[in-house]
């Protein structure tokens, strides 16, 4: 997965399909880790759904695939956009998992149930970036090093810079990073949303 050329042009749909066809097992695993994080608190979406929707948009020609960008960066941007739009739709749509169906609210003396489009306060509501990050912190709260690592990344530090800032050596940094990867791998977003 090292196809980068620095050109400003876009890949064609056929080129995108061919590129995705060369993904290794580890490449697909990387893409799924990213999908897993964007699905945190996203009602009705599983990581595979999000990744597949991103792939569909590229292959349908609905999204550009800039030549020269790393494939994971391109996929991340697409999944971010799709997840963000899905969250907005979930918030404004009266027909979603967080709608209040109130049979006690009567209209004109009738017995019809009234659909109230207010959203309830649950962890899956109002999932802003801050709340998503809070969910990440919560999920790794039992491991102090992972918390520190996530904080460093949220502060736009990574690699050697993060390592230095945290006062760790490479061995400790890599070990923490691998543990975070393991947590993400085991993360079940639907179970956590309940």
């Amino acid at each position, binding site marked *: 997965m090292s196809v980068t050329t620095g050109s400003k042009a876009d890949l064609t749909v056929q080129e995108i399909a061919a590129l995705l066809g060369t993904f290794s097992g580890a490449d697909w695993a990387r893409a799924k880790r990213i999908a897993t994080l964007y699905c945190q608190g996203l009602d009705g979406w599983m990581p595979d759904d999000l990744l597949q929707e991103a792939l569909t948009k590229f292959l*349908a020609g609905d999204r550009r695939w800039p030549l020269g960008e790393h494939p994971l960066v391109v996929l991340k941007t697409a999944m971010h956009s799709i997840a963000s739009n899905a969250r907005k739709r979930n918030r404004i749509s009266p027909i979603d998992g967080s709608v209040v169906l109130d049979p006690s609210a009567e209209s004109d003396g009738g017995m019809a149930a009234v659909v109230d489009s207010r959203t309830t306060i649950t962890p899956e509501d109002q999932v802003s970036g801050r709340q998503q990050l809070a969910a990440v912190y919560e999920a790794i709260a039992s491991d102090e090093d992972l918390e520190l690592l996530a904080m460093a990344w*949220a502060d*736009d530090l990574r690699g050697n810079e*993060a390592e230095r800032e945290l006062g760790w050596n490479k061995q400790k940094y890599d070990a923490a990073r691998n543990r975070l990867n*393991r947590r993400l791998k085991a993360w079940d977003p639907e179970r956590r949303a309940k």
Partner: protein
Amino acid sequence: MIDKLKPPFDNFMDAVVDELIAMTDEEVLDGADSEAEKAAGLELLAAAKMRAGQRRLAAAKVGAASFKKQYDAADQPEVSMDEVRRYITQASNDSRYTLAARSLSQISDEEALRIYRQLKAVESDGGVSGDAE
């Protein structure tokens, strides 16, 4: 370069992507079967290809319907057929035009409309001696 304006979660996700790229395949897989991961990914890709094809087809159908609607609308007379026939009758009595000696009642709406457009075109071109039939 540190971008302090970016939301922390966006920074976090960018770092996650960079770190995933930096990690070795073995580290990312963490004991998972590479071939199984690849097969699952290719299955997603195959499903996405099928859905993309369906979406492109649906979009093409919508486009074709829209084009046909526009075409049909453009093909519709901008005046009523009564007005078309009245205009042709009037033109047939105008010495500047030469129209075939056929009863207007014998020609179809389509033909009447074609003659009407020809007459209008001649009129707008300033020519008056053309044969409209």
